[in-house]
């Protein structure tokens, strides 16, 4: 895993994104940095509103006015995508070398175009295929993502597909041009649990067979463990902790990460009580000066009035906390009353 590659395929440096709303300037991203190596799978985890999707949109160049990237940089194989020349290059990359699967497969396809038309459109655009070749390739792709009778399905409209099938189509569209990086934004959230597993398996298979890098955006820690090598945890527009999946899960440093793990039900550990993190994330309209998690943190102190710097952890990850690795959430005592009640 520690395949020390010289240049990451994608690097995000200190990225800040602002949205100008009626209420004021909302700071969607407040200095996000991470990098993805070729063939690597990274998870971007956090609750809704933490900035995961905004990060993805920024990479895909989908931040529309009145939102804008206010500072920071996004680099593709070491080249900035935000400079003037970079933006031109980015236009060619998007959809071809970097592609994206969105959360809601129900609304992500044009209702008036057949599935085939969607596929043929991108294949002709990015791969320069003729109409016939694009059709043939489209059939192969549908087959590859596990859609039966692909030929007949090519002529059907999105409303004739179920949610899971549509997400497969979205994946087929995303891998159509043999991308190097796939960003999957909550790809399974809108799907039934059984379908979720199928779609995740499909992503894992594709990742292996195509050597894809994947950035998986999710709020569900449960699906991260099986698929991803690296994890970055986002909170209130910044990354609070990052590292390999193993270190983050086994030695969570940040109180928020610890809380997140402890609030996720686990099949293999029935005894551990779930905890809940009280309160709500801070408003990004007026984000706190210090640590954003301070108000909800069980182990916060005076120090936390100042913003903690990002620091390396002994396990090779990084964390932004003044008191990392403190067990923030005391083990819920096996309370005698609770025991008696059962």
């Amino acid at each position, binding site marked *: 895993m520690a395949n020390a590659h010289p240049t990451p395929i994608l690097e995000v440096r200190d990225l800040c994104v602002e949205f*100008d*709303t*009626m209420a004021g300037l909302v700071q969607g991203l407040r200095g996000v940095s991470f990098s993805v190596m070729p063939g690597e799978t990274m998870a971007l985890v956090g609750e809704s509103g933490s900035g995961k999707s905004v990060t993805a949109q920024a990479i895909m160049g989908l931040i*529309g*006015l*009145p939102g*804008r990237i206010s500072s920071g940089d996004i680099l593709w194989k070491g080249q900035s995508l935000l400079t003037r020349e970079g933006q031109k290059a980015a236009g060619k990359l998007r959809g071809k070398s970097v592609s994206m699967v969105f959360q809601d497969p129900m609304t992500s396809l044009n209702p008036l175009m057949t599935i085939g038309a969607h596929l043929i459109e991108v294949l002709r655009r990015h791969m320069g295929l003729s109409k016939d070749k694009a059709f043939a390739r489209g059939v192969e792709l549908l087959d590859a993502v596990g859609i039966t009778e692909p030929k007949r399905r090519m002529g059907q409209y999105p409303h004739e597909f179920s949610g899971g099938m549509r997400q497969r189509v979205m994946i087929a569209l995303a891998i159509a041009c043999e991308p190097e990086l796939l960003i999957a934004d909550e790809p399974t959230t809108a799907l039934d649990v059984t379908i979720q597993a199928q779609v995740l398996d499909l992503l894992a298979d594709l990742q292996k067979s195509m050597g894809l890098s994947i950035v998986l955006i999710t709020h569900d820690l449960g699906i991260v463990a099986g698929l991803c090598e690296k994890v970055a945890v986002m909170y209130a527009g910044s990354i609070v902790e990052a590292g390999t999946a193993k270190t983050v899960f086994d030695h969570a440093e940040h109180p928020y990460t610890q809380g997140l793990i402890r609030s996720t039900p686990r099949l293999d550990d029935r005894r551990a009580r779930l905890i809940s993190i009280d309160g709500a994330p801070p408003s990004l309209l007026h984000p706190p000066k210090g640590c954003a998690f301070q108000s909800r943190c069980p182990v916060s102190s005076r120090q936390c009035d100042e913003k903690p710097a990002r620091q390396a952890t002994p396990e090779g990850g990084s964390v932004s906390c003044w008191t990392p690795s403190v067990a923030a959430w005391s083990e819920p005592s096996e309370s005698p009353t609770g025991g008696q009640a059962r």
Partner: protein
Amino acid sequence: MTVTSTSSLPDTSLKQGLLMSLAPVGRFLSELWRDKAGFAGFAFLVLLVLVALFAPLIAPHDPAAQSVMARLKPPIWMDGSAPGHLLGTDMLGRDILSRLLYGARSSLLVSVSVVALAGSFGVMAGLIAGYKGGLTDAVIMRIVDVQVAFPGLLLTLLLVAVIGPSTTTIIVVLAFSNWMIYTRVVRGIVMSLRQTPFIEAAEVIGCKSSRIIVKHILPNLIAPLLTLGILEFTNIILAEAALSFLGLGVQPPATSWGLDVAGGKNYMMIAWWPITFPGLAIALTVLSINLFANWLRVTTEPAEREKRYARGRAAKMRRTKA
């Protein structure tokens, strides 16, 4: 984000109460001021209503007074104008400004009556259809569907032709051919409201239907009906003007803007003012209503407001970038 202080002193509460009762008016005006076009429209409408109410006091002349000597005199700023006739005179020597002021009465009388008549009937039908459902609903909506597909203006012409044109006739006929839209809108809202938990809860508790309608459904109808009514207003003003222009609406000696345009039509080769001013009056009135309605629609919907703001900011950011 209004924070009401729970520990207000007793002697200030009276003042506060007074301010609170005036606050909606102030809020309305300051909100309106943000949209300059909407504000201008509203101001023009207020002016129009005042003019219509006080026409006899303001009008410099009797709108029906003819004068052979002062026929087709141009407006005051042109050569050959007659003193005292600010906007000139028409082919019978009648003062155009005075006729405009009185014409506002016809327009408002007809449009207010039609909107009130068609609106109340249409809303009733919609409430009944939406609330009763079943066969009642099917019958009412079928009538609506059929009537919507009627050859509207032609049927109006036929009706006016057999009944004989008059102000009352056009009020009745226009109300007859314009009630359906209210029914459709109201029924749609009632149907969707009936499925909301709070109405279902009220029904389960055993609230009377009349109480549910008055207490729960009517308040939700006010905003959409207001917008609809205002937009219908423009349609009726234009319809009245068109019918009067065709000679099937308001009849002389009463005045109407449409009637005045028709009167000036035959002289338009030699005099532009007899048709220009009444036409302008119609256009400005309708434009004002449209601008105000536009503001109202955006303002009553929070999502629309946010969108409007976002679009404005985006446009500004693009301009500064360019």
